[in-house]
């Protein structure tokens, strides 16, 4: 009797998990236009639109999860969500720990922003960046003095109040700040290409999910919807080999 009961309990577990295959999508929610939270507390941004469309094409039931940038990869590996879709550039370093889908943006240029009219030596000055970003390691390698802040907001504030000479971040993130600063901020120097485009991070042990998303991204590439999303959110260049 007891055995049957236990079996029944497990069976009910099994049934409840067979049809509902929710994929949890981890994002930061603080990096517009990639991902953000609007005034109604809803997720918005390029990656939210993209992710929802990908899930639809891959026939997956998706749920969005917010996670701090700092612990976004450990929580993926610990299974708190199944993908990272948070403006994460594909790098060698990260590839050692997690897998990536094919990139869904072209390599996004990173740009320096300074106070307008300031003459800054980008190779030896004081450059601000968010802790743990590819830009932070780039600044160290470039020989400049790195100042690290926990949030992207603080990096821009640091340039405004004179703590740092310049900030280095993704072009798409900085552009609205420069445009709306009323001439206070401006781009400086050449853009640099650091990462290999932005992709979705997926556990190495989860290759079937990676395949599903890869084919969904490919299908969006083929019918032109990927490029139109990129244009709509002013992310980066469009893919020349997509429609």
């Amino acid at each position: 009797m007891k055995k049957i009961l236990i079996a029944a309990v497990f069976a009910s577990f099994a049934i409840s998990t067979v049809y509902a295959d929710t994929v949890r999508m981890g994002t930061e929610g603080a990096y517009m236009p990639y991902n953000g939270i609007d005034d109604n507390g809803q997720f918005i941004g390029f990656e939210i639109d993209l992710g929802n469309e990908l899930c639809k094409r891959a026939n997956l039931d998706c749920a969005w999860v917010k996670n701090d940038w700092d612990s976004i990869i450990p929580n993926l590996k610990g299974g708190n969500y199944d993908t990272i879709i948070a403006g994460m550039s594909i790098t060698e370093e990260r590839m050692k720990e997690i897998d990536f889908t094919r990139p869904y943006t072209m390599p996004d240029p990173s740009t320096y922003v300074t106070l307008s009219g300031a003459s800054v030596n980008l190779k030896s000055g004081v450059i601000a960046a968010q802790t743990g970003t590819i830009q932070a390691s780039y600044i160290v390698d470039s020989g400049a003095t790195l100042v690290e802040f926990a949030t992207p907001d603080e990096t821009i504030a640091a340039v405004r109040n004179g703590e740092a000479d310049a900030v280095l971040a993704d072009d798409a993130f900085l552009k609205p700040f420069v445009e709306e600063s009323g001439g206070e901020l401006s781009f400086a120097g050449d853009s640099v290409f650091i990462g290999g485009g932005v992709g979705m991070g997926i556990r190495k042990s989860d290759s079937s999910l990676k395949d599903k998303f890869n084919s969904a991204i490919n299908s969006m590439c083929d019918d032109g919807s990927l490029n139109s999303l990129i244009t709509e959110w002013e992310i980066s260049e469009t893919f020349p080999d997509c429609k």
Partner: protein
Amino acid sequence: MSSCWATLQDYGLRSIGIGERILPKTDITICEQVVLIGSGLIWNIYFGIIAVFFGFWFSIILAVGKNHKLALLRIPSESIIFVFRGSPLFIQFFFAYEFFVLLPKVGIEFDLGFITLSAETRWLTRAWLGGLIVLFFNTAAYSAEIFYGAIRSVPSGELEAAEAYGITGWSKFWRIIWPSMLRLAWPSYTNEAIFLFHATSLIFFSGFPAWRQSGDALYYANYFSDKTFNPFLPYPIVAMYFILLTLVIIFIFGVANKYLNRHLDVEQRAKIQISINILR
């Protein structure tokens, strides 16, 4: 083993800017983690020692101020104690940084007669000075409350006896209140010192940005957790270091406690140890 020795030479003093400039990025070894996190501990010790030392003297002033009849002295002391004890350190760091960055960035020269010191307001936005100032006020406020409590509980008989001998004013404070106050407050003050050393790990974490990747133990632990994506090694290493640091503090303060209680017999000493059980 020999490679770990090389790591120690390269990164042992990295947190204060000496040694390899580039931090390890790939194939990070346990040795590198232990060495760099240990290197970061230099900052925790620096913040802790300086803040406790200067905070101690300021806290005495605050405690005496809070105990003073004159409102002009009492109210400022009470306010400082209230604000710094009543709000989280996390928020204090935030406000301190936001305030310091607003200051105009100038150089100031102090002419001390025999030597001229130059300082820059820019330093205030750096952890080594700005963060230190917050910790200084913080520990001073907490310790002041402890010392205030101790002043209030100096046995009235001792004070009456002193007055009978004609000991008053400053002399009464230094010779009668001061030794008893220290003795009574010491166990709680030990706790406060331990907590302050723990609090030093919040400086780079929440308040002040790290420059040139020079930070405290938690900063490097964070860095490794970020590079290796494994939080289960670096954070326990930090924890280990702090346990060691705490044992050292307990030892040093224990020696001081023995000295303060040297005139009492053993039984009374033990009683003091446990009768005051005030944490922070």
